[in-house]
Each structure stands twice: as structure tokens, then as C-alpha cells.
């Protein structure tokens, strides 16, 4: 009796989510390799693609970590010759670094505008274009009405939108599907080799619509994400000993 009720409730939940636009994948496979734990936090256990994602960062180092994480996500979104638009007010992203994350940097079109409101206008126009794989916009802040407009646009067009908020001090509610915060973590080099290891981040999901929040450690190695568990290696980093390669 209870089992039947549970089934009915989960079926109802699935159909409501489908009406809201969260489409389940055909197989039980996750979209991004290595992000299984994170994807399970989302409704239907799938990373929402036709949606707006918001990333908070206060310092340029966090902004760099966010840029790297987004580049890793873009690799899967831009498979098969996809194109991405990167909109900002000042050019800081260095295109050759994107190649390390598996993207062809000449498939990314950079738009450097002068004013903040032009960034929003360009983002809205770009999200309406179905031919794009993703749109990334660097903003200082965004309020509820603006984010709701963008969310409505992506629901119709199916393009994934990423907003990098550089001034995360003024936080307000937004209509985005998910709010992330990425910060860099100390990397661990394998087998005691000197020098830096693969880039490693602390990924926090602060807000998810119809999902669970959480915090995970993820690293980018061998061209894909891989989850990091707490205790893996025996290497102890000593404070005094400097190792260079």
C-alpha cells in the first residue's frame, strides 16, 4: 500500500518536473563525466541544460576557478562543433588556456562591451539564438526581474546560460535554476611528483530549484572531471620543503 503510494507520488513528481521543463535523459546516464554526485543533486538526476546558472565569485582567483569549471562544462556542451558566446566588459579570459579544458578556442566568440547594461542586452539576444551551445556572461550584479527574463528566454530556446557574478556582496534572490560557488583547493600531485597537481576545486551548490544543495570536491584531470574523496594519497605536503620541477 505504501509502496504503491510512493510510486504514485514519484510519478507525479516526474510529470510535474517535465511540465516545468526538466527533461529526463533516456538512459540512466549522467550528462557530464565525473560529476555524478553533483548531478544527483538536481531534479531528475540530470544537469539542467536549457536553464540559467549563476556563479558567485568575489576575488579574481575565485573567478579564475569558476572560469575553469565552466570551461570543463562547456567541453561537453560544445561537442560536435558547438559555438559559445562569452560576453564581458573587460577581456581577462586567455583563450589558449581553454584548449586544456577540451574546447576549441576559435569556436568561442568573445564580445567585449563597454557598459554593464549592454552585457545584459547582448546576453538576452544571444540566448534567443538556438544555434548556440552556451552563453557565458560576466556581470557585476543582476536583479530578480532581469534574471527572470533570461530564464524565460532559455526555457523557450533551450540554450544553457552561465552568469558569472563578480560582485557577490550584493546578494539577492534570483530566478536562476542553480546558484554555484567555486573556490580553488590545494591540488595534490600524484605519486609524490614535485610541483602542482591537477586543478582542484571546491564546488558548492548554494541554491537549486527542486533539488538538494551540497558541497563537493572535484578535480580536472585527463580531460574530464573526476570526483575527489578526502583520503586518497599518502603524500604529506610539508610546509618547509619547496619542490620545483
Amino acid at each position, binding site marked *: 500500500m505504501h509502496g504503491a503510494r510512493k510510486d504514485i507520488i514519484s510519478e507525479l513528481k516526474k510529470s510535474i518536473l517535465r511540465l516545468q521543463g526538466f527533461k529526463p535523459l533516456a538512459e540512466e546516464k549522467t550528462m557530464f563525466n565525473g560529476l555524478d554526485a553533483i548531478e544527483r543533486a538536481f531534479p531528475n538526476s540530470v544537469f539542467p541544460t536549457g536553464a540559467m546558472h549563476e556563479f558567485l565569485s568575489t576575488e579574481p582567483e575565485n573567478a579564475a576557478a569558476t572560469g575553469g569549471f565552466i570551461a570543463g562544462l562547456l567541453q561537453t556542451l560544445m561537442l560536435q562543433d558547438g559555438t559559445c558566446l562569452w560576453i564581458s566588459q573587460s577581456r581577462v579570459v586567455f583563450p589558449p588556456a581553454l584548449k586544456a579544458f577540451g574546447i576549441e578556442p*576559435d569556436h568561442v566568440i568573445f564580445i567585449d562591451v563597454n557598459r554593464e547594461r549592454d552585457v545584459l542586452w547582448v546576453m538576452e539576444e*544571444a540566448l534567443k539564438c538556438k544555434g548556440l551551445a552556451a552563453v557565458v556572461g560576466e556581470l557585476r550584479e543582476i536583479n530578480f526581474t532581469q534574471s527572470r527574463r533570461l530564464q524565460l528566454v532559455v526555457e523557450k530556446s533551450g540554450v544553457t546560460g552561465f552568469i558569472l557574478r563578480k560582485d557577490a556582496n550584493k546578494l539577492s534572490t534570483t530566478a536562476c535554476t542553480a546558484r554555484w560557488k567555486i573556490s580553488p583547493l590545494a591540488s595534490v600531485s600524484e605519486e609524490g611528483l614535485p610541483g602542482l597537481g591537477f586543478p582542484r576545486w571546491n564546488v558548492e551548490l548554494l541554491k537549486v530549484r527542486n533539488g538538494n544543495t551540497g558541497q563537493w570536491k572535484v578535480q580536472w584531470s585527463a580531460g574530464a572531471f573526476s570526483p575527489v574523496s578526502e583520503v586518497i594519497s599518502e603524500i604529506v605536503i610539508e610546509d618547509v620543503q619547496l619542490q620545483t620541477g
Partner: protein
Amino acid sequence: MPGRFVCIWFCHLTTDWQVLRRPDLKNIPFVFAAPDHGRLLITSSSPPALLQGLYPGMAVADAKAVIPGLEVIDEVHGRAEKLLKGLAEWCIRYTPVISMHLPDSLILDASGCTHLFGGEQAYVDEIIRRLAQMGYTVKAGMANTIGAAWAVSHFSTNTTIVKTSDLSRALVPLPAAALRLEQTALQRLQKLGLRTIGSFITMPRSALRRRFGQHLLLRLDQALGNEDENLEPVKLPEPYHERLPSMEAIRTATGIEIAIQQLLQKACDRLRKENKGLRKALLRCYRVDGKRIEVGIGTNRPSSSVTHLFKLFELKIPTIEPALGIELFTLDLPKVEEMPLVQEMMWGKDSGLNDPEIAELLDRLAGKVGPETIRRYLPVEHHWPERSIRVVSSLKDKSAIEWRTDKQRPIQLLPKPATIEVTAPIPDYPPMMFRYQGKLHTIRKADGPERIEREWWMDHGEHRDYYQVEDEEGKRYWLFRSGHYTGDQGQQWFIHGFFA
């Protein structure tokens, strides 16, 4: 009414053009030469060279014997034709029917055009004057037939306008070459002593045909008007121009929108018939008070879609100030290109950068924020980090080289490297601590050094030794030391970027 023809003879077509390009050649003898059977032969000479006896057809070696310092310029094949065509298109203002008569004459059909210029003499004088202003020496002649006009322009001493009744009388004193005969016929006439046209114009026709062939009779009849000679008029490309006048002056934005829609509809219909697309369009609005407003749009790919082009104009409508009203709209298309056929687009790759939707999106963005904001980067063969990429503005450019994957580069690069303070560096080792923007970072791990030498052929300065460092919080930076380690505290260390 018999037609009236004007023949304009450019006495020194290519050399006048060359003097326009290089004013220092104005009074100097120079020649154009082209290779023929292993030698260089003169094809045309400037007036001072002609005075010295250097005629076309002479060998350049002989010409250089006459004038040792002669300037010889290589002739480009087809240049004279192109020049003549350009001049023919310029002469459209005098008559709609113009024909080129190689090597260096133009025939204008001036029937019915001369009264607009104040008479035949004024008409011909005006043409000569304007061409002389442009730098070309010309001689002109006007007659009822093309043959006669050609003869009169080439062989009379000054401009002659032959009246209808005077046709044969005008031809009589001219030499036989004025009839455009072949060399053999001319030589034979010369041998027989028939120097002027008048000497054989009265001879019986059968005798002329027997001696000199049918061609001479044909030319004679054409000159006298007994045979018709046809002109092949130069075809001028019709400019893409649409006009929309309105009875009342239009003052509202809706009115302007409707006008633009109608003009675009007509223009795109014509483009679609010719399988072309526009790249640039210019809308001109003529106001009641005499002012003219111009609005231009551009596209990345040739387009003949009314909706897309209207959206591009829509962004600019707020800048049009109608004031008292606009009474005439015109649409000009200065740049038009061939449009790839629809079938081609179906088979070709339409995804990624070739997607027409993306091109249209970029057109809209360019219209609003300016085309210089849209950038794509391609790798170049420079190892200096700031110069390792170049900006391209089109979607089609591909790079010849691949992006480098061997060296790690930071995801964010500062526009200019910022100075940092470091503590106690050891030669070839990264610093133990550094201070940037007031914060102290202790370095736990580092990779490097990667020495990047300055490209001495491009600029001067010290080389850089780059280190990838990670501090105690896990933040990763790209630092470099400028120059060699010298052991003193005055060493310059910089931060250049942030790693992911």
C-alpha cells in the same frame, strides 16, 4: 531623322593615364612595351617620345639607341580595354548609348541629346573640355554615320562637326586610312597613288571590288550612310536603388517602419531573382526642410531575408529625427554579393560557426554595440604570451596552426603584468612568499621555471622566467621574474595571470 554620332579619339590613352598616376613623367619621353617573339616592342609612347620618332611597333632596343635614358614601362594586358570601359561608363552622362571602338575610341550615339547641352558645338566642346580636365587629350568628330565620325575625329586637324548635307564633301580630303581599311588594301591604294578618299570615291564600284575587295566598298558605304553599321552599346550595371515617395510627410516611427518594410521587400525580390544577397544597405530619408538623414547597416553574410534586415534597421530607427516630416525614402545597396544557393547550404555544414542563425545574431549585436566588440581568437606562432593569439572578426577564418597543448596557460591573463614583492628568492627557485595587492601569500608548490625569451626581432627587453605557484589556500598564480637572477633585492617580479 538620321542619327548623329560623335567619335572621341583618345590620342594617348595609356600614356595619359600613366602621367595621371605619376606626375613626374609629364614631359618626359617614356614608352610602354610588351614582349613579342622574344623582343620587347613598343605598344604606346608618350607625346615627347613620339616627337623623337619612337612609334608603336618599334623595338625597344632601337628606341633606347635613339634616347639612351628612355623609361620603359611594362604593358599590362587588357589595361587599355579596362580604361576605355571606365571612360565609357563615365560618358553615360552625355548619352545613354555608348560603344567602345578598340583600340582607343568611343562612339557616342548623340541623336536627340545635343539640344540638352545647348547645341552640337557646345556638346562636343563640353566633352573635350571635361576630358582635358581629367587629363586626357582627345579629338572629337561628329557626323551622321559612325564611319564618317571616326574618320573625321582621327584625321582632321581640329574638331569637326559634319553637317548632314556635307557628308561626302567632308570625306573627300581625308586619307584612305580614315575608312578603317585593312593593311593590304591600304598598301595597294598607296602603290596606285590613290591617297585621298576623293580619288576613288567616284570610281565605278565593280572596278573597286575587283581590285580591292568587298571590304573597301562596305566601309565606303558605311561612311556615306548607304549601309547600316551597328553599335554594341556598353552595358552598365544597374545600381540597386529603390525609391519610395510619399504624398504626406511621414513623422511617426510606424510610418518609417512601413516605408523600410516596403523598400526592403522590393530590393529583396530583385536580389532573390538574381541570386544575390546584400552586404551593405544605405537608407536615405529626405526631409521636408531639405535635410537628408542616412542610416546604414551591414551583414556578415550576404542576406536577402526581409525579416533579418528589418530587424537590423529597427535598431537604428530611434536615431532618425523626422522633424517636420520625411517625403522621400531611398534604399541603396552599395555592396552586393553572390548568395550561395540553398541546395549548397543543405549539404554543407550548417552547424557551429556556419550556422546562419549565429551570423544573424552577430549582425544584430554589431548593429547595437558595434562590430569591433565581436572577437574571435586564432593562434599565431609567437611564444610571447600576449602575442600568441590574434584577433579575427569573421566567422570563416581558420588558423593554419593548432592551439598549443604542451604548455599550461592560465585561464585569466592580466592585461598588464602587475608588480609583486617577493621574499628571499634563491637562484632558479620560485619565491617563498609574495605580496600582491596588500595580501601575503605563502607558496606551497611550484612548477617552473619556464623561460620565455623576448622575440628580439619584435621588441627589446629582458626575458621572463615563468613559475606556476600555488599558495596555502590552493590559489594558483602565474608569476614571472624579468631577467636573470642577480642576487639583489631590486629584482623585478610580476604576476601575470590566475590559473583555474
